[in-house]
Every structure is written in structure tokens, then in C-alpha cells.
């Protein structure tokens, strides 16, 4: 399979993730869209790594997964705490940091 097909697929998935962040107001779905974007980048890294026969790309994917897992663990814990205090995960209600 040619590399440009994988690039196109990654671009599509990344843009769907961006669209999810822009369209939805539920903070959990925004998190899921971020996961989608991270996965698009992972797919691109793996396809280039396989194209160039370089293992470093696949090692970067492992690091991305580590960071994504840590982000999800802390982020969801923050969301649960926020929900306990304000009974919502709507990002339009959570505007305390707005200037």
C-alpha cells in the first residue's frame, strides 16, 4: 500500500477529531476526540516507520500511548471531581477560568 493513502487516512481521522472538539460540549466526548487525534498521529508514525524501515517511529508510538493513558487517567479524575461539585460536564458551564 502506498504511503500517501495512509497520510490521507490520518489527515481524515485528525480532522474528524478536531471537528469533535469544535462541535461537542460534553467534556468526555472532547476527550475522546483528542484520543482520535492522537491515534491519527500514531497511525502516521507507524506508516512512516514501516515505509522507512526505521523502528524509532514505532517507539514514539509507545510513548504517545503512555502520555495518552496518563492524560486520560488524570483528566477523567478531574472530570469526576468537577462533576461532583457542579453536577455537569458541559464545557459551557465550566467557564470559571474565563477572563
Amino acid at each position, binding site marked *: *500500500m502506498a*504511503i*500517501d*493513502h*495512509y*497520510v*490521507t*487516512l490520518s*489527515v481524515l*481521522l*485528525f*480532522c*474528524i*477529531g*478536531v*471537528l*469533535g472538539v*469544535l*462541535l*461537542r*460540549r*460534553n467534556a*468526555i*466526548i472532547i*476527550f*475522546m*476526540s483528542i*484520543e*482520535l487525534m492522537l*491515534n491519527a498521529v*500514531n*497511525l502516521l508514525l*507507524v*506508516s512512516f516507520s*514501516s*515505509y*522507512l*524501515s526505521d*523502528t*524509532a517511529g*514505532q*517507539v514514539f*508510538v*509507545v*510513548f504517545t*500511548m*503512555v*502520555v495518552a*493513558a*496518563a492524560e*486520560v*487517567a*488524570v483528566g*477523567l*479524575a478531574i*472530570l*469526576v471531581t468537577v*462533576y461532583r461539585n457542579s453536577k455537569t*460536564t458541559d464545557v*459551557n458551564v465550566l467557564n470559571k477560568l474565563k477572563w
Partner: protein
Amino acid sequence: MISTYIFYFLSFVAVFSALLVITSKNPIYSVLYLVVTFFSIAGHYVLLNAQFLAAVHVIVYAGAIMVLFLFVIMLLNLNEETETHKPALVKFAGVISGGLLLLVLVAALKNFEMAPIQNAPNPNIGLIKNIGKVLFGEFMVPFEVSSILFLGAMVGAVMLGKKEIK
């Protein structure tokens, strides 16, 4: 060529279920469609000879992260009734901006050409032996730093999950 058909099938499944993730009203369905997307991406990894990463991807994403998402959604009792929506104008603006980003990326990548590869493609780079050699050789320090990051994330999640924060 059979791998071409598999590629198109997996790509279709990935993009279609990714679209369903961001459009479905119920957050639980979003998680389930995201699991489908992750499985099709794992299929792509197998196609790209990255078998170890495909297994890790399924275990970490579909097994751990998605269960965490599902757990939180059910804990917070989010469902279709509690789901809020943006006004139509904001949605329209979001679709336009996302479409513009797609347009810019496609236009930027339309005429790109990869430099010709020096060595013949090696199908064995995705094996755990080679990944381990690079991970524990060249990338030893980032590996250790990521373990500290994990420890910090774990402590932070436990601290945030406690009943009252002092």
C-alpha cells in the same frame, strides 16, 4: 491485491465509526464506536507489519482507556437526556473551520513526494525484539521519564479521586 481491499475496508470502518463517535447523541454509543475505530486502526498496524504495536494498541486503548471512559460515563450517569447541544450557528462555524483545516492539510499534502528509500523495506522492524532493542538502547532516558510521568499521573488520579480535597 488482497491487502488493498483490506486497507480500504479498514479505512472505511475507521472513518465511518469516527464520524459516528462525534455525531451520536448518547455518550455510551460514542465510546463503543471509538472502540470500533481503535480495532480498525489495530488492523492497519497489522497491515503495516507492526504486530507488537497492534497488540499493545488493542490492550491499552480498547482494553484500558475505553473501559475507563465507559466507567466514568456510567458513574456520572450521562445519557441522551442530559446531553447538551451547541446552537446551530456555532455548529455551522465548527463544521466550516474543521472543513477548512481538512482543505488546508489536503492541499498541503497533495503534491508531496517521498524521497526514494535507500534500503529495501524490512518487514521485521515491528517485531518485539527490534522494538525492545531500540526502546531500551536509544530511548532509555525517555522510557524512564515516562515511568515517572506514569507515577505522577497515578498519584494525581488517586488524589483527585478522594472524597474531599483539602
